């Protein structure tokens, strides 16, 4: 089953049955290692609990916990058992450290976000999209049908709707006595240039109140 395998070059990795089984078996084997240690070392010592707890928390912590636990009650038990357990711990530590770090599993609700990021990266190669906020006065150059000269729109951004690659901004401007509002998808390939000319301080995210205001607030001269 070659489907949905791990990708080498990105963090994205979709869970597979094959990738899950070895992971679970590895954790089980690590727990069994710690249990083996416990059975060999002397019971009833203070070191018993820290050994077991450390083993369950992280596989890399087994060796360190075992060594610190062994040093404190050195009177009880013989030196042979101490050296045995230290050797086992070191061998276990080596075996455990060789395990590669866990690759992050991608959840289903993150897939669309990842795909949108990729699509935005592709769209950024056509043009660099600046950071746009409501209240910015922008100039947009858009390609028209039949690939004639680019049309220029200059207006104030009255709203921004963020939706990944389909982020849109709403521009309001006045042309020949008519107020016009246009919605532009920011990452569309037909929009060749977006430039923030200036900014007006506003205290709103959506400037729909401009519709009731005087036209001079959304009239801009095109040079």
């Amino acid at each position, binding site marked *: 089953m070659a*489907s*949905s395998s791990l990708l*080498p070059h990105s963090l*994205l990795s*979709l869970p597979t049955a094959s990738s899950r089984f070895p992971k679970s078996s590895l954790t089980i084997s690590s727990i069994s290692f710690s249990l083996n240690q416990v059975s060999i070392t002397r019971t009833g010592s203070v070191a018993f609990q820290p050994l077991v707890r450390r083993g369950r928390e992280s596989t890399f912590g087994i060796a360190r916990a075992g060594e610190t636990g062994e040093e404190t009650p050195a009177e009880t038990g013989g030196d042979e058992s101490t050296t045995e357990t230290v050797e086992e711990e070191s061998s276990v530590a080596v075996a455990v450290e060789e395990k590669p770090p866990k690759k992050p599993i991608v959840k289903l609700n993150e*897939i669309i976000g990842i795909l949108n990021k990729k699509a935005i990266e592709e769209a950024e190669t056509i043009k660099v999209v600046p950071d746009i906020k409501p209240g910015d006065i922008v100039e947009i150059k858009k390609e028209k049908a039949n*690939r004639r000269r680019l049309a220029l729109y200059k207006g104030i951004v009255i709203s921004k709707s963020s939706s*990944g690659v*389909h982020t849109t901004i709403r521009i309001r401007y006045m042309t020949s006595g008519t107020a016009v509002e246009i919605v532009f998808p920011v990452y569309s390939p037909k929009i060749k240039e977006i430039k923030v000319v200036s900014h007006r301080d506003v205290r709103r995210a959506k400037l729909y109140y401009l519709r009731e205001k005087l036209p001079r607030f959304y009239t801009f001269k095109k040079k």
Partner: protein
Amino acid sequence: MAAASRGRALLSRLFLFQSSLNASPKCPALSIYSRNFSADPLPDYASESGAGASRIIEAKSGVMAPDSRRTGAIGIKCGMTALWDKWGERIPISVLWLDDNVVTQVKTVEKEGFFALQVGAGQKKEKHLTKPELGHFRAMGVPLKRKLKEFPVTEDALLPVGTPISVRHFLPGQYVDVTAISRGKGFQGGMKRWGFKGMPASHGASLSHRSIGSTGQRDAPGKVFKGKKMPGRMGGEQTTVKNVWIYKIEPARNLMWVKGQVPGPEGSFVFIKDACYKKPDKSLLPFPTFFIPDGEETESLEPIVADLGDNDPFMAGD
């Protein structure tokens, strides 16, 4: 199940016995008949009688006949977005993820009476499955799946158990029918559920702006007909959206971009089949499914986009 098959087998033996009385007696029939009353395990009647020899299904590509039907696949709806194609036209997109589709059971005429393939998708832990479900997967020797769905096929489209069905089973540019359980809308009125027009908002209409109005005639028939469209629970039932166009396919992650809407909420299972109305070109589809050729690295494959032709739709003057 075993008892029923034994009953059928017994009946078939009785018929054979009758025929053996009329025609020349067949030694195997008599020996089988005598063995019915022993403690020995039931013999394999199918192989001994010679009819319906065990079917061998091979995983190799074939030619699609005009009346062939191939399997579908199970996908998970990831969400919706919008993309722009190479001409700059905006396409609304639903993203479907074909997560580890594997053939889990083959149904044939000899045993079940029809030809079908049961496909499983997703992964499931052993502790989350009931014992009958677990036994089914163990008996077939397939990994534990989250969703099973049966797709009726023709005899030439059968696949062996364990065959993976990747997203390359479908072609970008083909049309598919997508079936899923739609979003539940709860208890809804006539206007939303059935598209009734309602009543005027003013001009004296009293307390009935969104009601369903009259429900029938008078004394004849004196009742409301069954099936009268009335308010009730809407949604949450199986719906099929037909002729959905596949825009893009990514074999590395088993993702499929389709145009438009697909029933159901995000995270729900959808069942994808070849369209029945806008039929795809039979010679281009991988039949019975797409088998990964040796030496091909699926991870390094680029996404495949549908062929949009050479004519720019925005160049109207030409």
